[in-house]
């Protein structure tokens, strides 16, 4: 453990130093004038952005798990270290009412001791959108539909992707679709009504896996800001006559206290349902708490059971501005197993971001999280943005 651990720390340090030199030092400004950088304010028709992220990680295996037995048999392999890299890029071109945008990722990882090297290239989004007025737009291309109010899980995200619970804000791949959106604002209790409808075809490699081949789905979302409450009504139907309906809401009970919920079910006999009931509270000592109760169906990253998701984050501890430590856990209420993490992010620098994370998976060897291959994981992420 010690040798591998210190090798990982040394590698992290070396990577971080190499990666950050020049970028971090160039960030500090000493001028005291209040002038604006005029070119920064001028809009360019073509805008591009990119980021490179490196994250070495060390995993301690759960040698009692059946996955370990399958993978290593009688071998005594306790640890695995991985060296991952991800380069993300995006471009956006706008001319009057027409917008074209694309975003994608190239990723690579090297894992020891298996010495496996993996590569992946993925297009997150790529679409053209025409907005003749703020109230109306049509879109064609690949886009992610992130519907729902839950942090950990979104039963109403009928065209969404499962979130990585250890990196909830990570970019996800969209689906190829044609979409139309209409927004209307009002004075009174109903402040906003918006309608989004989209069609998703599945043909060959297009939206492969979303439905069986040569099918299509239609999704619709109606959003209302009614009595200071966000309300969504979501519908799904496909060419196999499968239908789903869902509703979600989010509301501030007080400035510090938000509540939200989601419910979705299939429209057939013996319907399966999924739900989220959650709350977020900002305490007077500036810690934000999130708690969610999840009832998950068979689909997605969860088993058909109930979960509890908890998260606490505290920005700027001890007046260290830009540092945000947080801790989170997802607990399978049925079998008592859990995955918990502690992380710290530091965003002081203009072009750099740092994340250190420790994850533990615990539970009975037959339980959901206790049966996973990994038991402990440590990772250190360095991200440069341009």
């Amino acid at each position: 453990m010690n040798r591998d651990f210190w090798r990982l720390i040394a590698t992290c340090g070396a990577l971080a130093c190499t990666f950050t030199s020049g970028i971090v030092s160039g960030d500090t400004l000493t001028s005291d004038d209040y002038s604006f950088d005029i070119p920064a304010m001028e809009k360019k028709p073509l805008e591009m952005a990119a980021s490179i992220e490196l994250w070495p990680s060390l995993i301690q295996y759960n040698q009692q798990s059946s996955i370990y037995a399958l993978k290593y048999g009688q071998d005594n392999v306790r640890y695995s270290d991985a060296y991952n890299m991800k380069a993300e890029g995006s471009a956006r071109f706008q001319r009057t009412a027409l917008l074209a945008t694309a975003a994608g990722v190239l990723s690579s990882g090297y894992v020891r001791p298996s010495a496996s090297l993996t590569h992946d290239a993925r297009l997150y989004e790529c679409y053209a959108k025409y907005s003749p007025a703020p109230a109306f737009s049509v879109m064609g291309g690949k886009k992610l539909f992130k519907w729902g109010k839950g942090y950990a899980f979104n039963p109403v995200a009928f065209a969404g992707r499962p979130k990585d619970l250890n990196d909830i804000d990570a970019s996800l791949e969209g689906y190829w679709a044609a979409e139309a959106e209409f927004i209307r604002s009002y004075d009174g209790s109903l402040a906003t009504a918006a309608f989004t409808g989209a069609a998703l075809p599945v043909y060959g490699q297009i939206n492969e896996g979303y439905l069986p081949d040569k099918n299509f789905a239609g999704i619709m979302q109606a959003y209302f800001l009614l009595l200071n409450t966000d309300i969504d009504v979501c519908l799904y139907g496909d060419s196999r006559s499968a239908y789903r309906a869902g509703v979600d809401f989010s509301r501030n009970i007080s400035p510090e206290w938000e509540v939200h919920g989601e419910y979705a079910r299939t429209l057939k006999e013996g319907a399966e349902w999924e739900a989220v009931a959650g709350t977020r509270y900002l305490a007077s000592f500036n810690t934000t708490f999130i708690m969610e109760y999840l009832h998950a169906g068979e689909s997605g990253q969860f088993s058909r059971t109930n979960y509890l998701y908890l998260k606490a984050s505290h920005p700027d501890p001890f007046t260290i501005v830009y540092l945000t430590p947080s801790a989170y856990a997802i607990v399978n209420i049925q079998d008592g197993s859990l995955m918990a993490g502690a992380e710290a992010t530091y965003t002081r620098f203009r072009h750099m971001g740092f994340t250190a994370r420790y994850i533990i998976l615990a539970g009975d060897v037959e339980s959901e999280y206790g049966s996973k291959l990994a038991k402990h994981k440590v990772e250190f992420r360095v991200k440069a943005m341009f």
Partner: protein
Amino acid sequence: MIQRYAITIIAVLLPAILIFAEDPAALLQKIDRNLEPDSYEMYRKLINVEPDGKKKEFLLYMVRKGNDKVAGVFLSPPADKDRSMLRLGDNMWLYIPNVGKPVRITSLQSATGGVFNNADILRIDFSAEYEVAQMLDTAGTYLFTLKARTRSVAYDRLRLWAAKKELLPIKIECMTEAGMLIKTLYFKETKDFGAGIKRPSVIETDSPLYKGYKSIMVYAKIKRKKFSDEVFSINYMSKIGELRE
């Protein structure tokens, strides 16, 4: 005899005093209009200054309509680019491109870290959020004591010093209900932005809660502009940057 003169003088002056005495609420509304037009677009630079003098800057494009609709999008730094914020009355949301959907936020949180919080960035008129509890008319300045109209306002009380001549704020102290000072805003460098908009172009902030830190908001390119109401909806948050010309 003297008593009769005094009564006569008071009888003559009283109507004039009543006519010309300034209504504190109306004065506060004038200060609001002098600070910002009813509907506008502008650029803002937020600078967080650390105790050692090092800085981190954020550039925002902001739009506003009427007294309850404000929205803004971050143009830099790269980590925050395309994040947008929306305020619709007491409701506030933050849109993060990766997250892909708006999430509700509170006025006391800070999207940028440092002394400025969301309420400072998405501020609406003082007269919309506060009522005048007291106004002291001193030489050269008015000192308003303002009390929040609802609990959803970030600061329960404000003490606002305004220049009598220009009717623009000079300094504001933000306090809790118990009278604890949370932060002080200093309005500086009055600048003519054209089209009758003349206001302080720099607001400096310090806070006893962030000893040694300072945050600065610099205003540029304030322009009267009309927007449709639909711009101020959560469905439009990912597109606010498209309003820039």
